[in-house]
């Protein structure tokens, strides 16, 4: 046994690798509206407008309740690492269950109150142990659930122009994150020692944000909408677990905390009724992802091998274009059908894209229907398909170059009640 006198350069095994949360906004917050690809900011006649534009709620009279769920089944594959290999690695298949619930009540013909519960942000990727990118991502999971009480008011009409405003408080009721990856920085006589590092965090403080909106309806054929959603500052904290790593460098009982700030976003839309029974809407949605300059993880204990993470992510702001349509089928009483297309930019530059979230610019397609079972009860369903453009990462600035392909199938169903 011998000792070094010197201060050996700290290994900081955990710290050197960038951990990036990323373009993890979810907008499948309502079964009915997802059927027309979320193009709804200027419409707002469903109770789930609490999510899409709280101003819409004052258009509803009486009591409304909607309970639904979406199932998201993404499929990803990676081929690489470039420049010397194009071996194929499939992401593990997972299906995510994303519930939502909305209720509203009109106190007066001009004033409505509402309460929504939904998941505005989420992410889940799981790769196989030992895969070529395991030192960058193994298992990543983020679940955010919020309560969103809103109030909406119809302002005095100006001539034929009707104006609705609304706003609410967004309260995070659940925030959980898991980050895990393999540590391949040690070798023994048999070769690389594969250890794992994993952090399971839950929110230690309730984050609070807000959403606002306005709908202006110059005629029954035309309306405009605008909505804004604030950032949500999540503070997560939990135990770090290390397996198959020397305990002196990776002790048990380490607590890690990380902050994730979700992006602010706004949307502006126009809705028209070109012919009877048909509603068509186009929305532009902006996400302020550039607020994600870095992700910081702090550990309450440090060793030469375990240091805090301060990783730049360099996201840029993104635009989303949503086109949706809704048609009341006269032949079948109570049937409404929907369809939509979205073009969605991704916020992650080539140099920081990693298998935690292999995001890419993508096209989303959806279709759906509602069927009015009784005057009080209706059933909704949607199917959505996401096709991401093939993403080729081929820059020496990224430690894992290769091709990413992503697609996803989503479907959902909901029951709505109106009294």
């Amino acid at each position, binding site marked *: *046994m*011998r*000792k*070094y*006198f*010197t*201060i*050996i*350069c*700290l*290994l900081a095994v955990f710290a*050197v*690798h*960038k951990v990036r949360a990323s373009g993890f906004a979810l907008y499948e917050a309502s079964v009915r509206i997802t059927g027309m690809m979320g193009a709804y900011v200027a419409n707002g006649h469903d109770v789930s407008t609490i999510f899409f534009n709280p101003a819409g709620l004052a258009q509803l009279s009486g009591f409304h309740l909607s309970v639904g769920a979406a199932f998201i089944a993404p499929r990803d594959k990676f*081929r690489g*690492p470039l*420049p*010397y290999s*194009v071996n194929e690695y499939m992401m593990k298949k997972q299906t995510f269950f994303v519930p939502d619930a909305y209720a509203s009540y009109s106190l007066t013909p001009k004033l409505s109150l509402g309460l929504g519960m939904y998941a505005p942000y989420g992410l889940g990727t799981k790769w196989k142990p030992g895969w070529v990118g395991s*030192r960058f991502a193994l298992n990543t999971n983020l679940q955010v659930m919020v309560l969103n009480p809103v109030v909406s008011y119809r302002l005095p009409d100006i001539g034929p122009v009707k104006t609705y405003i609304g706003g609410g408080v967004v309260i995070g009721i659940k925030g959980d994150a898991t980050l895990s990856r393999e540590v391949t*920085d*040690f*070798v*023994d*006589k*048999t*070769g*690389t*020692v594969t250890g794992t590092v994993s952090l399971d965090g839950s929110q230690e403080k309730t984050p609070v944000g807000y959403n606002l909106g306005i709908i202006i309806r110059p005629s029954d054929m035309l309306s405009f909408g605008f909505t804004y959603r604030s950032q949500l500052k999540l503070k997560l904290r939990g135990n770090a677990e290390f397996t198959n790593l*020397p*305990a*002196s*460098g990776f002790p048990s009982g380490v607590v890690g905390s990380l902050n994730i700030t979700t992006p602010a976003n706004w949307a502006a839309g126009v809705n028209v009724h070109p*012919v009877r029974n048909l509603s068509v809407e186009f929305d532009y949605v902006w996400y302020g992802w550039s607020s994600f300059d870095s992700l910081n993880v702090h550990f309450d204990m440090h*060793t*030469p*091998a375990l240091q805090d993470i301060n990783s730049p992510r360099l996201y840029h702001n993104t635009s989303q274009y949503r086109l949706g349509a809704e*048609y009341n*089928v*006269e*032949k079948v009483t109570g049937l409404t*059908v*929907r*369809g939509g297309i979205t073009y969605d930019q991704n916020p992650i530059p080539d140099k920081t894209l990693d298998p935690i979230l292999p995001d890419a610019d993508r096209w989303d*397609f959806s*279709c759906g229907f509602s069927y009015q079972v009784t005057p009080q009860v209706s059933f909704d369903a949607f*199917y*959505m*398909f996401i*096709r991401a453009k*093939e993403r080729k990462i*081929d820059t*020496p*600035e990224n*430690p*894992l*170059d290769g*091709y990413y*392909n992503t*697609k996803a199938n989503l479907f959902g169903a909901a029951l709505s009640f109106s009294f």
Partner: protein
Amino acid sequence: MKRFSTYFLAFAIMLLAFNSCEDYSKHTVGPFNTGSIDVSKYISVGNSLAAGYQSGALYEAAEMYSFPNLLARQMGVKDFKQPMISPGIGDQIAIQKFTIDPQNPIIVTQQQLVGQPTVTGPYQNLGIPGAILADYLNADAQTGGIKERAKANPFYGIVLGSAEMSKPVPSIQDVVASQNPTFVTFWLGNNDALGYVTSGGTLPMNTVPVFTQLYGASINSILGINSTVKIVAGNIPNVADIPFATTVGPIFKAQLQQAGVAGIYYFKTQSNGSEQATVMPATSIGNPTQALILLTAQNYLPLIGQPTGKYWRDIAAQKGVPVSAIIQSYGGALDTTKPFIVSPQNPLPNSLILDSDEITNAQTTIDGFNNAIKTVVGSSDRVALLDINSIFNNIVTTGGITEDGITLTPTIGSLFSFDGVHPTNRGYAVVTNEIIKLINNTYGANIQRINLESIPEGFPLAAGAN
């Protein structure tokens, strides 16, 4: 209005169709733009630095990150074989445990690795740990040469192969020529000076005239194999700048000054070859031009002031002679009952320190080697110079190199592995990136550099490390 519902139905069917089609495009690796270099047969010639030696041993997990292997990968070389050795050969310095003491953050131990190649030759990486410049042509075969050195060094036989070693005069050149290379990296000669430095000036260096002659003959032999082969030749970094020589001194100096010790005694080689106790002021210790304390001293320095002969007992055990015989050879100049290092009769052993004369001597000789390399490289447009000496000097002067958000300093555990002489995985990647830069600039190539974050640190863990 019926047509709208037809449209919606058609749209839904289209979505299902979209989903079922697998439109993923097929991809292959490459093309690799290596400019005017033909990489169809790349051969690496060198010593432990080419073999991928790390932390006192050669082992498979380190060989994977040898600079020739990384370079071959980036250039798209299809067949590049190395003598992958499992579990390894050598006394590997490995992590025993981490501590929270900032002075001793890592406690290491040595573990002996005994192994064999898992891949059969002929190899394209002909890096032979311990090889000297004379080995390339086996120029000193008459006085023993490779065959003599192979008696104490198993790597000659492993790398060159038994067929070559059974020849009357084996040489590296023979193995290179038999593979008819199109591209060669040639980085030999470090060991012609390294032994002098790591022995504290007690082992000889090659001379500049001999080195000059050997270098020209070696490069010309490669150029003569065929008319198109291209060479990247690396020069010799100043070995007095490696952590093996720079790590311990400054810490020892601080300890001396804290204890109020003004100076120490060390054995200095005299012009007649004898050794004499000489004073070294504490202020000179760790000064890169005055006195470098070697990594090998770290086990003995804590014994300062004690009446100890531990170093001499260790040497005696190593050589298999009685310790009394060694002490008697100093003819009364050495008395291990006197306080170690602070008494002129029990000074710091010569092999643990490089003094200013020895530092100058090493520097002058290495400068001579590098001038010879520069002249030889300049005489052919098929040879490019990898000026690793300037690159390393620059890293030492500026305190480190930063790529991809990772800063590597010229210290143990960063650019250098635990032996203080050989780079880490990422250190070898830095060397590779410098070669890539040189090839891109010189031969009109566009080879992608390596992202340092893609390279695992590769630190050895001792058996039972906790």
